[in-house]
């Protein structure tokens, strides 16, 4: 049975701010995201200046800022003073409230008690720690810069510094990963009493050292069935430990869902600052130049650093709202859909019928959700909805929604 509990739902106009910190000490084997390892702390001041310049020039969305997220890269390489400076400037242009969720992604290999206190003092109130695995050989193979011990101490120091909301990331389906290792990772992380867990299946992106190593036969992924079993086990175990699955890959103790990620799934506006950062609002998606130097040059010259954009038609926005929203356990609220688009969600009737017939979708009058099977096969659902026909129904049908 799908949990009916709704942890947190943004208002339609609530928005988030994403700040990309691309610096890393080393590149993880699976990573194909926008990161640089060749820059050091001496490059930070200019980068922060660029972010502030971009922020000052940015058009701030209407509505309430509910989340600030420092993502990376490795944001925990940035000195707390810089984080404080950025947050202060953000507060100056917004109706800043204490309730804003301020998350910083952290690598356990970069954290100290001092630094954590510094971040907390700067206004960060949520930590997302990239743990990934608890076995040294996996961490080494992934080219992580930390060991299992660093994860334990990072958590202890985070609590000591006053962080009441801490999340771990972990990955299943690692090359050579066994069932026991995965269980040990999840159980070990639970023992550290986090408030939130993100469990991701390893994605092999082309061009990464991981993809290359697999091609060369250096590593082998576990069998598809074993990887599926790992997920199933975690999905069954975590609710028994007081965690609810509020999104396909995300679990939290009540009241601790990630607001920032939720904004993505609910198609709320967000503004992205920094190299390669993505933004969305008013039917438009746009993204910044990926290269740090190019981004900096543009931002510091007072130009918009955007490198590309995509305008969504209303139909396309409705489709994305549905296939993204279905990732949430709460599903889609037809009332909310109607409020937002002035069309009933029944415009997707045909696709919904097909997906229900396949046992992937559960339609109630107050919510449309994925079934358990649908959550396992969320891509099948998304692919069906990706270019689903939007069928405007007559008034008679509208009223029944």
């Amino acid at each position, binding site marked *: 049975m799908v949990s009916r509990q709704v942890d947190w739902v943004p208002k339609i106009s609530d928005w988030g701010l994403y700040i990309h910190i691309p610096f890393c000490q080393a590149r993880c084997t699976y990573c194909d995201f926008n990161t640089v390892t060749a820059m050091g702390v001496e490059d930070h001041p200019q980068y922060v200046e660029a972010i502030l310049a971009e922020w000052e020039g940015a058009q701030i969305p209407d509505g309430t800022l509910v989340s600030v997220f420092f993502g990376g890269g490795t944001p925990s390489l940035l000195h707390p003073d810089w984080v404080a400076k950025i947050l202060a400037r953000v507060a100056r242009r917004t109706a800043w409230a204490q309730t804003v969720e301020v998350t910083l992604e952290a690598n356990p290999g970069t954290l100290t008690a001092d630094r954590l206190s510094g971040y907390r003092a700067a206004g960060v109130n949520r930590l997302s720690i990239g743990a990934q695995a608890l076995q040294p050989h996996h961490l080494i193979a992934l080219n992580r810069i930390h060991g299992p011990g660093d994860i334990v101490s990072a958590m202890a120091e985070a609590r000591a510094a006053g962080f009441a909301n801490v999340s771990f990331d972990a990955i299943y389906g690692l090359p050579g990963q066994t069932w026991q290792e995965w269980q040990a990772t999840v159980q070990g992380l639970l023992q550290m009493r986090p408030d939130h867990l993100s469990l991701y299946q390893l994605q092999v992106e082309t061009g990464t050292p991981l993809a290359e190593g697999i091609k060369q036969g250096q590593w082998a992924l576990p069998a598809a069935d074993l990887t599926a079993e790992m997920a199933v086990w975690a999905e069954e175990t975590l609710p028994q430990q007081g965690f609810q699955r509020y999104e396909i890959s995300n679990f939290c103790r009540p009241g601790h869902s990630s607001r920032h990620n939720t904004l993505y799934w609910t198609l709320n506006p967000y503004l992205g600052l920094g190299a390669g950062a993505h933004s969305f609002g008013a039917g438009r998606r746009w993204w910044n130049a990926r290269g740090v130097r190019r981004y900096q040059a543009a931002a510091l010259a007072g130009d918009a650093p955007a490198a590309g954009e995509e305008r969504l038609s209303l139909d396309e926005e409705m489709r994305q709202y549905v296939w993204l929203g279905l990732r949430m356990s709460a599903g889609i609220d037809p009332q909310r859909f109607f409020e937002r688009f002035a069309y009933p969600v029944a415009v997707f009737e045909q696709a919904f019928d097909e997906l229900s017939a396949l046992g992937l979708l559960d339609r109630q009058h107050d919510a449309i959700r994925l079934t358990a099977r649908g959550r396992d096969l969320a891509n099948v659902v*998304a692919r069906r909805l990706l270019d689903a026909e939007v069928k405007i129904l007559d008034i008679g049908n509208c009223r029944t929604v």
Partner: protein
Amino acid sequence: MEQSRIRNFSIIAHIDHGKSTLADRLIEVTGTLSKRDMAPQVLDSMDLERERGITIKAQAVRIDYPHEGMAYQLNLIDTPGHVDFTYEVSRALQACEGALLVVDAVQGVEAQTLANLYLALEHDLTVIPVINKIDLPNADPERVIEELIEIGIDGTDAVLVSAKQGIGIDRVLEKIVAFVPKPSGDPQAPLRALIFDSRFDTYKGVLVYIRVVDGSVGVGDPIRFMATRKDFTVTEIGVFRPHATPVDRLHTGEVGFVAASIKSVQDTRVGDTLTRSDNPAREALPGYRPAQPMVYSGLYPVDSGDYVRLREALEKLQLNDAALTFEPETSVALGFGFRAGFLGLLHLEVIQERLEREYDLSLITTAPNVVYQVTRVGGGVLRIDNPAMLPAAGEILTIEEPVVQAHIITPTDYIGAVMELAQERRGTYVELSYLDPRRAMLTYRLPLGEIMYDFFDQLKSRTRGYASFDYQLAGLEPSDLVRMDVLINGETVDALSTIVHRQKAYYRGRGLVEKLRELIPRQLFEVPIQAALGGRVIARETVKAMRKDVLAKCYGGDITRKRKLLEKQKEGKRRMKSVGNVEIPQEAFMAVLRVGEKE
């Protein structure tokens, strides 16, 4: 040119023994083409020919050769080397009086050497042995001479040559003049010219390659193709040097081409006789038979909207390929397509590649099959070129399948392995003879259907690459054959039906369903794959239901990327054929060819 100073010859060789290099050198040494204009494999003009190092179309080059104060005209007729084109080769040889038999000084006599030699002898050609690559450090001409003697050629007469280094080329030319007989034929008789190939030229229409046997032909002459009974008027006559060069007439014994505003090679069949329509010859030259496809395969567009484009592309290819046949066909599984007939598997591959490369078509090709002859209970003979069309077992009196006579030359160490392979493929032992103490020739009768796919690969792998293989068709033989159907998710997929020997059905069925299980991706539900004989299931595998298909992290709100990834996946699924709710990838329809292959 006086008949006595014309020499028509071809070069025959096993693949890679240096046929094309020797031809290049003859053209170069005689100054037919300047060094500047030379490119390797001058005679192979199709991209595919150069890429694969094979000759698909025949060519004819006129070489002027002054010798001892006399001017000679040498016509080199280059033939395709592959067994698929045996009939074409036989017509090209028919146009010659002599042949250079090229043998590699390291490799020695191989199966194709032998098959081509037999063909040459059948046509009563004078054979001049040439041992090539004598410059190689491990060349052993002495041993090759012994082997030549063993196959009935006086090897002591062989010219020792390095085509690559240009050694011995003059000697080859001298021998051609001295030993290849002058063309016989009556200059006063009505025109008779043998067609040994033709190709389509966008500007001139079909160029018909001919060897004038009797009489002569000139521009403006009214001509007739005796088998197809089509009349035309000659618009151009020429020879290849090796570029097309116009001449006024082709006389008795000469070789060249004729253009006559002919729209399609379908009118100009290889082996047919060209004569004058106002003074026709009484009898055609012997040996003509219409091109007979040996291998059939279904060609279906992946995107059903491409059906018309596929038909147009096939029609265009047919303008230049009289051996290609096709007829519309409907498959329950694949929709509208064509059943196309080919001379052999190489021919099929070439056509398939050209359709995809030159016409940008994405195709599903069903597993190729041979043609079966079925005699029905109560009389009547059917020609079955599609396994799905085989009548029910109760209606069949006999089924006959094409068989070949195959020669396999192998080091003696591997005789056992070769015999084992031939047995597995239902071969009947004919003969074993020794070329020298270390090499033997095995002769087997084998069903064509058994050697079509991977026989040669298997032969190579079981003999560490040392064995060579060639064959000739040897008629039809009755056999205990049955149709094996494949059911996917309970539905018979007609495009996967094959005809197999009853005793091997179980083994083939197992292999096929296993291969299909590997090739068919997991679906939303469990998919049973069954092989069946007349409704009785003989093998079963299951593609398990897909467990997980989820995208995880959404890095920094990059939804665009996520959407593109999903779109790409969706595109990949579109390229599959949906049969009874199951998405089947293109390659699965060729699975039967890959049975036994490891993943």
